[in-house]
């Protein structure tokens, strides 16, 4: 099975120093944005990363491409130790690793025509053939008219701009695309167009994706495997079909129950597991289980002082919780539910 792994990440950490002082720069602590992540991205598949804002999804995605330098850990891409690469071999590898961003306009130069936006990577990497032909081909593949080439990014709607961003990402025939919130800024009806485009391109071009997003319904739709992140760490990893049917980690359980479903009949029957308080700061990650300050299933032993490892409790399903088996079997219950007026008191914030 390991031979179809395209990218493999082990013990990846990105810690940002917090500096203080005007004259003498002192490091007074670290934001542990990514705090020890292991991942395997399989060729031709989609790995979805979900979690609340600030949990480290974007930093992880960028670190995998070394757009931000990891503090620790290894990244292996198609047999190559990515972190060991010097400038030139890294530049060559970049062709095969691309990124799509949430706000295409911010990532596109407004003074550059679409043609020039798309030609640039072709020139820097010496893509064979006539650039104009490739541009026409790319526009066609992403569903934009040929005359888009002479126009400027601001002349396009949000959905069309994202098509331009995607065209640029596939210009050099990459193997892996990391898409960071690719549809979050778009209206619902447009999101579906872009999701379908990404799926079509994956099939046509044999692409491998990492899709980072906070919208779980969208991520689940496109992903084969989903990693749920909490405070810089993967707390659950699962085939995407199983995640809603049977979430294992208390955070995933709460996340799933919080997502509104566009069906009043379902909404009326649902029980919400409300979390209290806000995400703790990644500069000050709680000891033990990093979720224990908000966990509705928290136990008096182990949770606050023992770090749970990400363990495979059944084939393909990994979870970092001491009590998963007991929670799934119902032997441990959430402290309160939404039908209980004290629900908002569960796991009072620290």
């Amino acid at each position, binding site marked *: 099975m390991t031979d179809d792994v395209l990218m493999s990440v082990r013990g990846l950490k990105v810690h940002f120093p917090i500096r203080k002082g005007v004259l003498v720069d002192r490091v007074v602590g670290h934001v542990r944005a990514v705090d020890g992540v292991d991942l395997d991205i399989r060729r031709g598949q989609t790995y979805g990363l979900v979690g609340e804002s600030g949990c480290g999804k974007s930093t992880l995605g960028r670190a995998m491409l070394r757009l931000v330098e990891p503090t620790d850990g290894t990244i292996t891409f198609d047999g190559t130790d990515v972190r060991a690469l010097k400038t030139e071999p890294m530049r060559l590898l970049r062709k095969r690793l691309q990124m799509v961003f949430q706000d295409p306009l911010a990532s596109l130069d407004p003074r550059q025509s679409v043609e020039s936006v798309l030609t640039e990577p072709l020139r820097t990497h010496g893509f064979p053939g006539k650039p104009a032909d490739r541009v026409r081909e790319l526009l066609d593949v992403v569903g934009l008219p040929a005359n888009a080439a002479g126009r400027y990014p601001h002349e396009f709607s949000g959905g069309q701009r994202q098509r331009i961003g995607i065209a640029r990402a596939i210009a050099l025939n990459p193997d892996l695309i990391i898409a960071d919130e690719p549809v979050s800024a778009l209206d619902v*009806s447009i*999101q579906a167009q872009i999701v379908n485009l990404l799926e079509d391109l994956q099939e046509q071009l044999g692409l491998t994706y990492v899709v980072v997003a906070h919208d*779980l319904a969208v991520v689940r739709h496109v992903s084969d495997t989903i990693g749920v992140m909490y405070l810089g760490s993967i707390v659950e990893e699962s085939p995407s079909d199983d995640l809603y049917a049977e979430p294992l980690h208390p955070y995933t359980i709460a*996340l*799933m129950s919080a997502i*509104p479903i*566009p069906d009043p009949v379902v909404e009326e029957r649902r029980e919400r597991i409300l979390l209290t*308080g806000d995400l703790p700061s990644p500069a000050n990650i709680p000891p033990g289980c990093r979720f224990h300050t908000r966990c509705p299933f928290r136990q008096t032993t182990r949770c606050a002082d023992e770090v749970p490892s990400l363990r495979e409790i059944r084939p393909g399903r990994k979870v970092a919780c001491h009590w998963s088996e007991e929670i799934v079997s119902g032997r441990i219950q959430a402290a309160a539910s939404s039908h209980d007026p004290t629900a908002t008191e569960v796991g009072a914030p620290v």
Partner: protein
Amino acid sequence: MNNLLDVNDLEIVFSRRGRKDVRAVDKVSFSVAPGETVGLVGESGCGKSVTSLAIMGLLPKRGVRLGGSIAFEGTELIGLPQDKLRRMRGRDLAMVFQDPMTSLNPVVPIGTQVTEVLVRHRDMGADAARKEAADLLARVGIPDPSRRLKEYPHQLSGGMRQRALIAMALAAKPRLLIADEPTTALDVTIQAQILELLKELVRESGTALIMITHDLGVVAGMCDTVHVMYSGRIVERAQRHELFAHPRHPYTGGLLASIPRLDQPRGERLEPIQGSPRDMLAWSQGCAFAPRCRNRVDECVGEAPVLAPARPDHEVRCYNPLGGSDDR
């Protein structure tokens, strides 16, 4: 007439010299009964926010033409003098925005801001108001309220700020609360807390709520009546169960088909609505949705369809609605 709010043929036109007029809201009518939760849904730019600002009397005076009528318990709000409007705002009508920072004063402690509302609208003394303010913060789920009262808005997290704003909006016990995308900027776990809080407050206090959102999931969970807007007009309305069980307008149906459902097996493909909200027809030339519509027929371009009954208590603005015309 026992409605709390009656909006009739509301028109909002932005006109600036040297620019084309923007007809942001075009003959919108709806009403809100006491204690009712009414949803206004639609994609960005369809006119949800300007409708709520018009109700609150918060649209700029210059460069905006208002037409039609907005009656709150029979009192016409359009053209009401500023001082009267200001007195009604806070006491009768209150609003919660997507970004609480726009309505909180950054240099005044949270406690002072809540207390001011109580003193102004409920004639409370300073001491009583301070105590009530702490109670209110506790009620909206802010831990350690007496300490929080002394804090400034920037010291609170996004979720806590939104709670503080809800506390402020509810301080005067308004009969109508308008919440404009109150959770759009928040994470889903925080969204769930805030929505649960709003539901509970509405249930307990009998406050009517206009919930503005682009999220059909939020609507499904909390609105009694739903109005779907497109390009400044209401294109469909019904009670929530009726709407989700029998969406009739191709736009509503299209929205529902565009969203992946978390609770159902992963489907093969989503069915997006083609084009973008930018590709619209002026209502004066036919149905604004026609350029994007799968159900388009010849009649759709020419004269605008009218909002007409499609089923009992269910209206739709469409020449060729979903589900055929047999049960119209």
